[in-house]
């Protein structure tokens, strides 16, 4: 049992480490072709969109934004703050205030 767990941990460590460092072998320095730069520029946009949308819209395997209404209000408040102020600390402040308001209502 013991050895099996440690074997799993070692395996997990390897398959976590490789995806993390692999791109650093391919990309060194900022002098990259414009097409690659454009692709990299898009990454934060598509990654965050893919990361946060499913947990906000889905509930028990179907689309049900009503189940996460408070969270959606908080997240959208931060997005609007980001758009107008361009300052992350203000976005976080707005989000915290909205969490307090929505949990009090």
């Amino acid at each position, binding site marked *: 049992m013991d050895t099996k767990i440690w074997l799993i941990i070692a395996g*997990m460590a390897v398959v976590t480490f490789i995806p993390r460092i692999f791109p650093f072998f391919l990309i060194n320095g900022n002098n990259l072709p414009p097409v690659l730069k454009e692709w990299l520029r898009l990454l934060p946009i598509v990654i965050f969109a*893919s990361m946060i949308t499913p947990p906000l819209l889905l509930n028990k395997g179907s689309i049900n934004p009503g189940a996460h209404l408070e969270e959606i209000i908080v997240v959208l408040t931060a997005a609007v703050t980001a758009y107008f102020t361009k300052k992350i600390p203000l976005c976080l402040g707005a*989000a915290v205030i909205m969490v307090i308001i929505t949990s009090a209502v």
Partner: protein
Amino acid sequence: MNIQAYQDSRVLNEFISGISAALFFIIEFLPVGLLFGTLAIDAGLSAAETAGMSSLVFAGASQFLALNLLNTGAAAGTIILAVFVINLRHVLMSSFVASVIPRCGILQRTVTGALVTDEGFALTSQQSASKTIVSPWFILGINVSLYIQWQLATLSGIYLGNILPQLQNTGIEAILYALFLSIMVLSICKRTDIIIALLAASIAVILNLTGYGSSAVLASSLISSFIGLGVYMWIRKSGSS
């Protein structure tokens, strides 16, 4: 001050500002790490195994996934494969991080990449929205800060999990998503970016609905970013001709 001393002090400054930038994530790492430590002990792992997993793997989602699979009696190979699939998204995040640091040696790059996480990626992309080049020492500071937080939270779960009340998770998730979305908004600089973002969100939702949740972030990011690249190349081509 000679140049060497000047550079050393800048390295230290960047490292420290990375550490402090990441301190914010304690609101996430403490409750989540506490929960992981508690659940791992409940699942029958020893204290050494639990701490070993957090320190060698350092990936929240993967560790919870492994616990779930261990509880269902899954084979070692199944667990490792599942963890690999869920971690493939880090290839994209690391590509981005690798592209914002200046040219440097392979050792420094390996050290910078070794601890890339969703949260570290978020802070790096926030930093790169205002600066074109991000110091690898800043990124290392972020990663070391997050790593220590994760270990301390796991340890508190292992030893105090049955004494401490589990921290209320309500609100924290919303604040985390709010941060991610705000950084996304700051990364948008063209009108087509908004369409690409909506496309990525839709594909991710569809993949989750059809049972491909564990590879949704990777697959939808890849598909939508390549479509975005196609649009970019098409506009550039029609603009130049």
